[in-house]
């Protein structure tokens, strides 16, 4: 089912006059970093060494999720480990879970929750894989991947072995996993697990790389790539590795971010994987348990100059409100951060045409996000920026630390770099890494959390003027997976304007974002019609939904 095509012509005309006619505010996108008063004491530790072990620079992600079902989004930070033994017993290396107290502060509950983790961590995926109503965590890493089952009492149990998701490849052994994501690829109502794997690396065999005469983190060209993994959820707490059978494992790249959306509207969720200095993968879901890699055919494999970029984080959402999810990928200096506009059957690279090349061509980013930060109904872009090398000043004459970037979406056809006015923290260069976004204070404005290599994260509360309206939709699946991941939502406003979004927690790089589906409504005080297409195929319509609240929607029986 394709919603966008039939109405996109109308919309194209509509957006030209809509903002003025409805009085949508176009005030600044503004964030405030509240880390100092948040109670979050987490300091990432990558065990940075003069030897420049490759894994040091690849740390690490963050999840925004509600682990205790109190309606407040909590935070989970992934951490490195001591090197060379990748031991995590020292608390400085623990992953950390912070409970959201609802007053702008967070409490560290790692110890009680039992989620300090093991090994050198990379990323995290959050979702309720067993449909028991409690969000679970899957943590990726260099030498260990872990599945933490949420017991519903504030504690988690490591069920990795029982579940069969340790990330051990039959031939390669434990792969270096970067990101993971939950999605229901066969629409059986149970969330399956996708894991991206990076390169064949070990402490014992890694080469010594140099920039000039200085030790430096290696280019990915120094390593061979690894295949990604797909685990099918058996519904009994176990998973089956279907990487080979599904076709996913047949493609060998250097996997970084993984994001999901049904790009061609065939009712099955597809997968985009950004690869580091290798062409991106777009796994088209054939609907029969197999996938076809369609990156090249669809026009998302390379940037507009046919270059394999150093693909890092990505996001997969509809930026031009035509009902077709688009892809935003971030890379490194010289790559640009490509935006691939979905045309239904394939994608067009609109990076230059939509004004993204200028602000991004000379930057490097890790985390990426597509979200409507100013609630004007147009989703904006966020990039968590930093160089790859921590000594790039000496090697490349480039700053190793960079400020983040936020690009405002202007009418779905152009983006403007508004970073300079986005708050003080956007003027502070840091070694930014993972990015997750969500509404931490339930005020309808999308906040962001950005991790910093060997530093404290930024908790960026959205302080944009509250003139525009919004809607947050919390889905509760029944026949579909309980989180409703993969559900596609269409909001029609009184003006005739139509907005689209879908449910996913997989965003950026090594990160998990707020599962609730967000709509910025501009001046509209209600949604005339909210249509939800559940992964089960059930289509649900809600009329006259008032704005500015969190709407919980249960999946109907049919």
């Amino acid at each position, binding site marked *: 089912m394709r919603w966008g095509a039939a109405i996109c012509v109308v919309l194209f005309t509509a957006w030209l006059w809509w903002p003025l006619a409805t009085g949508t505010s176009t005030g600044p996108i503004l964030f405030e970093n509240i880390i100092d008063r948040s109670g979050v004491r987490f300091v990432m530790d990558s065990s940075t060494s003069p030897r420049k072990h490759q894994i040091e620079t690849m740390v690490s992600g963050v999840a925004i999720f509600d682990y205790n079902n109190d309606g407040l989004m909590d935070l989970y930070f992934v951490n490195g480990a001591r090197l060379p033994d990748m031991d995590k017993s020292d608390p400085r290396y623990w992953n950390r879970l912070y409970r959201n107290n609802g007053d702008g502060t967070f409490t560290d509950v790692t110890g009680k929750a039992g989620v300090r983790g093991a090994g050198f961590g990379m990323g995290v995926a959050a979702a309720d894989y067993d449909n028991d109503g409690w969000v679970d965590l899957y943590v990726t890493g260099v030498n260990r991947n872990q599945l933490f089952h949420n017991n519903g009492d504030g504690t988690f149990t490591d069920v990795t072995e029982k579940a069969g998701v340790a990330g051990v490849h039959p031939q390669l052994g434990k792969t270096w996993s970067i990101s993971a994501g939950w999605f229901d690829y066969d629409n059986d109502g149970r969330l399956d697990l996708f894991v991206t794997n990076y390169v064949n690396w070990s402490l014992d065999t890694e080469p010594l790389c140099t920039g000039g005469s200085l030790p430096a983190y290696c*280019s990915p060209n120094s390593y061979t790539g690894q295949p990604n993994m797909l685990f099918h959820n058996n519904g009994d707490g176990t998973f089956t590795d279907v990487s080979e059978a599904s076709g996913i494992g047949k493609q060998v790249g250097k996997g970084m971010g993984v994001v999901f959306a049904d790009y061609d509207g065939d009712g099955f969720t597809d997968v985009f994987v950004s690869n580091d200095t290798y062409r991106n993968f777009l796994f088209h879901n054939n609907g029969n348990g197999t996938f076809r890699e369609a990156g090249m055919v669809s026009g998302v494999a*390379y940037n*507009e*100059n046919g270059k394999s970029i150093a693909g890092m984080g990505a996001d997969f959402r509809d930026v031009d409100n035509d009902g077709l999810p688009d892809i935003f990928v971030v890379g490194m200096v*010289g790559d640009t951060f490509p935006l691939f506009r979905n045309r239904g059957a394939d994608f067009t690279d609109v990076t230059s045409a939509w004004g993204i090349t200028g602000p991004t061509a000379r930057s490097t980013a890790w985390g990426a996000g597509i979200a409507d930060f100013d609630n004007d109904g147009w989703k904006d872009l966020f990039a968590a920026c930093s160089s790859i*090398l921590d000594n790039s000043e000496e090697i*490349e*004459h480039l700053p190793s630390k960079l400020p983040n970037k936020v690009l405002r979406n202007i009418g779905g056809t*152009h983006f403007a770099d508004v970073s300079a006015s986005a708050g003080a923290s956007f003027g502070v260069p840091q070694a930014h890494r993972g990015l997750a976004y969500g509404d931490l204070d339930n005020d309808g404005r999308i906040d962001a959390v950005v991790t910093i290599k060997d530093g404290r994260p930024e908790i960026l509360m959205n302080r944009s003027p509250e003139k525009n309206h919004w809607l947050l939709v919390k889905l509760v699946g029944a026949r579909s997976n309980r989180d409703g991941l993969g559900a596609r939502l269409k909001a029609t406003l009184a003006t005739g304007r139509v907005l689209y979004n879908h449910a996913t927690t997989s965003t950026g790089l090594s990160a998990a974002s707020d599962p609730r589906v967000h709509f910025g409504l501009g001046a509209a005080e209600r949604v005339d019609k909210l249509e939800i297409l559940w992964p089960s195929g059930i289509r649900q319509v809600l009329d006259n939904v008032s704005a500015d609240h969190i709407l919980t929607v249960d999946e109907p029986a049919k």
Partner: protein
Amino acid sequence: MRLAALFVLTLALTASGARLLAQGASPAQQHADQALQFAQQGDLKSAESELRKAVELSPGDSNFLTSLGGILGMEGDLRQANTYLAKAVKLNPQDPASRRNLAANQWQLGQLKEAHQNLDLLLRANPRDKIATFLLGMVSEKEKAYARSAKLLESVPDVLAQQPDGWAALANSYYHTGRTENARAALQRLLSPPANPRTVFLGGSIAMDALDYSNAETLFRSVRSSYPDRAALESEIALAEYRSGHVAESERTLLEAVKANHATSSGYVLLCRMLSAEGSDLRALRIAAQAAQAFPDSSDVLSTKGSVELKLRYFKDAVASYQKAAVLKDSAGVKRGLATAQWNAGLREQATSTFEQAMRQFPRDAQTCQVYGTLLLEDGSPENKARAVNLLKHALDLDQSATEPRYQLANLELTDGNPQQALAYLESAIKLDPNDSRLHFALSRVYRRLGRDSDAGKETEIYQKLKAAEQPGARNDAAGGTHP
């Protein structure tokens, strides 16, 4: 070419000297005798002084004037020599020695027309005058009358045998008349027996000009231990190696020259370009910095440094280098480099001003329009896009063989939903440069948009093949923007 003249002039001096000895011992003659002895001992200054005294005492004696002109010519003072030789010819127009020496001198001074007239007179008087024939061959070579030059020179093999400069001139004439093998054979004569290193170097340069790089390389190498200007020689060897496809050897030659302080500015520039082309940008920059220290007044060196810095994204450094280069030599390339560096360094207003200035100053420079147009596309604004399109189209008007404007315009058309127009640009671009992977990538996208999936597949295949050839192998490079 000076050696030929010396030969001729020496002959003249000897001949006139012999006559002088036979004429008895006037005071003027005594000075002339003394001069001959000095000249034979190699003491040209004293010889000159004695001859000046002889001329002073007997200003109407054409022999003394010819001898003084000869000595001055040997000393390199061709202009003064010309004055005395011309006087001698005027006093005694029938004396072939004076006229021959005057013609030789005129040839060296580049007074080809005058030399030609004098040699014609000589040959009319004596068609078997081998020296005059030889000199006319040399003059004709300079006049680019290569067929005549070859004919004249090859007719006097015995003079050529004593005068190796002639082989070089003959080789040049052969190259220009399409007789490459003859040219190579002529140059071979410079090696066995070994000619003067300067002549061999000249032969190498002639081979270089004729794109006969391997022969040039052989000639240059043969005088490696004897040629006095080591820097120029090493630079030429490296260039010959590079152009004959021996890139690694060329790089080695230049690195060794740099190490031994034997590099010329053009050698440095070539080395930087080679290192940069192979992706060794940081090494290129180190060499460029060294070159800039050694040749602070070379615009080429500074703009090369700027280009390496630009590639490395050291934008502010690149701005500084190009600014210095622009002060030394204001060329379209330097202006374009400066504007690009300024743009990338975030100095948009300055960059715009530099681009606009460059376009006014060098209105026929297609590349400036193309680079400016491409950069203007970065921000995606409608105004800049319109200007960019105009610039790219203008670039294409200026240079119909350019592929980059076609590529950029095709991408714009594709984004604007005009695949047919994009197709036209790309097809013509690929005809011009079938090995540019980006063009095939873009064409595959266009074909796909047009529903020509099979063609798209073929283009994708070509793209991937070309791309694979471009990919560096596994190397232990640093991550980030550079691959040292």
